């Protein structure tokens, strides 16, 4: 029974992490209909920024996390303004090629600057070890991830549903022409959203160094996971990708525990079956526009 709880707990932490990593992609891919395979590169950038700050400059982990967010968001904003925005109107093939190119460049560049081995971020002592909760060992670090990601998710939902910016974004996505006719600066809204999504990915990358492992091949290794979250979750709301990432996280952890030999086989099969069964995702509403 306790193993079951541990698996559930680890799975939820993993899923929450995946959600923070992928929810930026849910906006670009799901809402703006831009196939951005390079999303993991922004996560990797955040992770490395955090690692350099903590390991080499001696910053506290808690202070380095926001900077990982800021660095990735800035990188995202710069790239969006300079490169991405030219490709919004192009076909999917061009977008795929472009973002694969970016992935290759980021992998080689990080390999060149930081070396190809896996990197670890020194954690403060307060985050290491486990706390005993009615006989179930709960990792402190994972608990922190659940708290941070849960708060972020709630905040995102609030921002999207309740604020002026949220309604502008939803309007811009639903019908860019009508939205700009109403005086909404659509490119600006997209750029801000893109940068914010990249920032979240960077934060996720910094948090995931401990759990997923951080090396130059991060964008390639986890690309499929981010894509699964978005395509399976559908694009109609933020809840879909959230549930999808929880499912994926729990499924992956449970699969690795109970069927270690099958490896990622289970996840890929489930994804293909779901996509065949419901091409717009489990929680999707309409086809991509």
């Amino acid at each position, binding site marked *: 029974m306790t193993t079951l709880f541990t698996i559930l707990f680890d799975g939820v932490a993993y899923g929450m992490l995946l959600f923070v990593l992928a929810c930026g992609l849910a906006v670009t*891919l799901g809402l703006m209909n831009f*196939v951005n395979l390079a999303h993991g590169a922004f996560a990797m950038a955040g992770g490395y920024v955090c690692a350099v700050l903590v390991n080499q400059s001696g910053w506290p982990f808690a202070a380095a996390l926001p900077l990982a967010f800021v660095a990735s968001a800035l990188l995202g904003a710069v790239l969006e303004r300079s*490169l991405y925005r*030219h*490709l919004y109107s*192009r076909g*999917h*093939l*061009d977008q*795929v*090629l*472009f973002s*694969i*190119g*970016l*992935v*290759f*460049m*980021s*992998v*080689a*560049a990080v*390999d*060149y600057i930081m070396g190809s081995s896996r990197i670890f971020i020194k954690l403060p002592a307060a985050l290491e070890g486990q706390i005993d909760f009615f006989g179930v060992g709960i990792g402190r670090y994972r608990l922190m991830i659940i708290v941070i990601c849960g708060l972020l998710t709630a905040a995102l939902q609030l921002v999207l549903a309740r604020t002026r910016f949220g309604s502008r974004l939803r309007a811009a996505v639903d019908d860019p022409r009508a939205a700009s006719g109403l005086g909404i600066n659509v490119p600006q809204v997209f750029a801000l959203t893109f940068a914010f999504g990249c920032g979240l990915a960077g934060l996720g990358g910094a948090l995931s160094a401990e759990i997923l492992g951080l090396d130059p091949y991060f964008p*390639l290794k986890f*690309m*499929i996971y981010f*894509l*699964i979250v978005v*395509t399976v979750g559908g694009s109609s709301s933020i809840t879909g990708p959230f549930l999808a990432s929880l499912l994926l996280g729990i499924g992956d952890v449970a699969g690795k525990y109970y069927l270690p*030999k*099958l*490896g*990622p*086989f289970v996840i*890929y*099969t489930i*994804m*293909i079956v779901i*996509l*065949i069964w419901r*091409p717009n995702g489990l929680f999707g509403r309409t*086809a*991509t526009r």
Partner: protein
Amino acid sequence: MDGQAEIGHFARLPARWRWSEAAFWILALSCAFLFPSRYLIMTDIVRLALFALSLDLILGYAGIVSLGHAAFFGVGAYGAGLLALHGLVTEPVVALVAAGLAAAMLGFLTSFLVIRGVDLTRLMVTLGIALLLEALAERFSDITGGTDGLQGIEMQPILGLFAFDMFGKTGFFYCLAVLFLLFLLARRIVHSPFGLSLRAIRNNPLRAAAIGIPVNRRLIAVYTLAAFYAGIAGALFTQTTALASLDVFSFERSADLMLVLVIGGTGYLYGGLIGAVVFRMLQEVFSSITPQYWQFWIGLVLVVIVLAGRERLHRWALWAPGLISRRVAGRNATMAASGGKRR
């Protein structure tokens, strides 16, 4: 000339052989005698060209964007490797066809998944299938050799006559012959009414369906055919290098393939062939500058190509040859290059 005959005339126009095409193949053959010390890399280029030709069939002619074309390459590679390793089919040509058919079988089965859904779903499904096969190959390591790959493959002489030599001379001529034969077949197919209907589907599936083209059946057919081609390319890989490892399924292989085709241009069959030559040369140059980090430059090339616009780049690339061929052949000779493109 009445209307019907005129339409037929223009439909057949791009199908005619041109002197530039003959020159291309003579040049390819003469490479064998010009660079006798470079057989291995030339064999590599020919294999890649065949693989790219396969992607061109579905991407350039049917408009299916695939991120997992390496799946069929891998099935062909492991198929040929297993046949040779266990001595089931020792004759390379028969084994080649058998491996190709195995890949075609997989292509046929998965095509039903691919024709469902929009672009994004297709991307995910093709990518997922390639990853699935890679995971399977790793899981059943007693058959595939796991991460070590298949080792100790010994190839018998081709048709019982030509033994593979250590310089790769036989391998090169073998690959080139296979490429040429399959190219002829592909050329025949894309200029047939079947090929024309594929282009109609690529340009507008809805209208194609409205004029009575069975869209799904055509897509299944061409996807299966492309899988066959990719399987053959994979089998050639195993037969000429005598090894097959897990990286035949890798995502990088599918991604590189897209770059090859994009460099050469889609939808006129020679794109993959030219792209393969340029890609390998670029790779050589980049890895001589920065051995470990050549991927960076490959990525940069991709980004630049997309930002500059693929169509525009090909117009520039075709400017000089077009000028020459107009001088020589007089009128409309450049139709060869622009015939397959979107108008």
